[in-house]
């Protein structure tokens, strides 16, 4: 099974900040989006059990290779990085066009992507990619298993889960319930240096004349501001359990919660 995993380098969660231009400050250490690591883990398990290989596909500035290397060290076979100066400030619509165009240049049975991204991405790109490529789209997966010529997914629902099936190739979006991502082994880390990260420009994926990128963004940031601090409240310490409990009860009464 040939699997493409969409991976997004994001600022290390907790370290993110906006630059003066209102865009993400990319000088912050980049890591692979957490949910993408879960689907990468699922992809690696699938090829370990059923054969095949895993290609990483990412859209990011050319210099952002550390997180891609880490994903290669986890066990992916190769990486394709779409990188073009005009993509700075691209909106989700542009990103969708770019990833779909890049996928048209690759061979695959399954495309996997993580549910939302930690940098504020909404987890909407994969649905658009599937639609552009006319592929079945299965989202919110907690389990992915291959069928003969198809894929079965357990999709989380508000009340439990739905069991979905579709033919391959297909696009599947996964959640953290797929299982903890592995740590890259030291052998994987050393081996990852020899793996290929193929950098592609927009022209190379056939989008040279398309209105994608920062100049054609469908959305625009108008203003940013710092949140007002919530203000730290009362701190109670060094009480015995009964006194601590009654401090909580008193507070609940004070706030008219009970």
């Amino acid at each position, binding site marked *: 099974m040939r699997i493409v995993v969409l991976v997004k380098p994001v600022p290390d969660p907790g370290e993110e900040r906006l630059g003066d231009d209102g865009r993400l400050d990319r000088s912050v250490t980049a890591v692979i989006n957490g949910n993408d690591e879960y689907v990468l883990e699922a992809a690696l398990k699938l090829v370990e059990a059923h054969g095949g290989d895993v290609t990483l596909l990412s859209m990011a500035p050319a210099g952002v290779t550390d997180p891609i290397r880490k994903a290669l060290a986890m066990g992916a076979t190769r990486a394709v990085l779409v990188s073009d100066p005009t993509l700075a400030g691209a909106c989700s619509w542009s990103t969708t066009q770019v990833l779909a165009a890049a996928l048209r240049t690759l061979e695959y049975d399954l495309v996997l992507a993580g549910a939302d991204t930690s940098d504020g991405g909404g987890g909407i790109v994969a649905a658009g990619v599937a639609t552009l490529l006319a592929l079945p789209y299965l989202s919110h997966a907690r389990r992915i298993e291959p069928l003969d010529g198809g894929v079965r997914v357990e999709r989380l629902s508000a009340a439990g889960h739905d069991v979905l099936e579709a033919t391959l190739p297909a696009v599947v979006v996964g959640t953290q319930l797929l299982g903890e991502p592995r740590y890259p082994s*030291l052998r994987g880390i*050393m081996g990852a240096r020899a793996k290929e990260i193929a950098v592609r420009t927009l022209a190379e994926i056939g989008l040279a004349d398309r209105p994608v990128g920062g100049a054609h963004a469908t959305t625009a940031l108008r203003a940013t501001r710092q949140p007002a601090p919530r203000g730290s409240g009362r701190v109670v310490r060094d009480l015995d359990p009964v006194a601590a409990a009654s401090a909580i009860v008193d507070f609940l009464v004070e706030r008219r919660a009970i």
Partner: protein
Amino acid sequence: MVAASALGRLTDDQRAIRDAVRTLARERVAPRAAEIDRSAEFPEDLRVLLAEQGILGLPFPERHGGLGADLLTVCLAIEALSAACATTGLILAVQVLGALPLLLAGSEEQLGRFVPALASGRDLVAFALTEADAGSDAAAIRTRAVRDGETYVISGTKRFISHGSVASLVTVFAVTDPEADRHRRISAFVVETASPGFTVSRLEHKMGIRGSPTAELAFDEVRVPAANLLGAEGDGFGLAMRTLDRSRPGIAAQAVGIAQGALDVAAAYAGQRRQFGKVIGEFQLVQGLLADMDARTEAARQLLYTACEEIERGAPDAGRWSALCKLVAGDAAMAVTTDAVQVLGGYGYLDDFPVERMMRDAKITQLYEGTQQIQRLVIARALLAHKP
């Protein structure tokens, strides 16, 4: 944390490996450290983790399933693990120590027979030189190995053997020729602990590194194939000394890691704890403690890295470098962890915080693989040997 000044000398691979081990140490090892210390049980789960991640394969040649890492890379891994848990850092350090006689003197046949299981981390190996009455004076050991046809028969008792109770292999130093010159009496053997006559006769109760089992091993006419002799008869003492030249940096790395771990806790605490209306980190007396801790730790680290490079390039005074770094790092670890407890005040003395454990763990780095006094002896001898 390794300071930026240290980054320039590390290769991309070394940095990547250090960062990966550090992440693993922070996320998987640190949460286990207090419990390992409290229960004094060998962390088999973490041995498996180190094996799976390839960390135990670092010191072994690639042709036998290892990663073929240099000494500095191995030490970076030990340092990163020890910052979270000294017992866990020691799993790798002892694997290096136990395997070094084999790596230094083993034939290709012996390497092929023993190394793959060590490199995969399936088997652990211990180093058995010390005896109750032969510690610093290693040449005075009494365990005997007597040739009998195609086997040697080993009898005697070894003490203070790290991992002696969890290892599958033990590198045993035993007297083969009692009549020979003091430094030619001893030979080294690879002994499988499944051999009849081998028993773990006692486990020590220790002040620190409590999860690392320290065993007394009894050899009651244990038969070992002659094919397990490392090098030639009489090579043992020299081999033991060459082993320690390469293994002491691992202990120095453990010490640097412990010091850094304690410094990180103390610095974080000083930035949070408030007394007299401000965080204690704003008091200059506390700042002085922290600055000295950082300076000692960083100085020890830089000496260690230099020692690794010197030993790796085959410096003729490798013994001096290894003794220097162990001496400085061991003392730094003891001083820094003691100061860390001081920064935390009364809280530092409680097991709610890890610094008291780190202080207990630090002490061993001044004792094993040669006490600090022996290190000074080694250094002084090297100095005097160069004089006409």
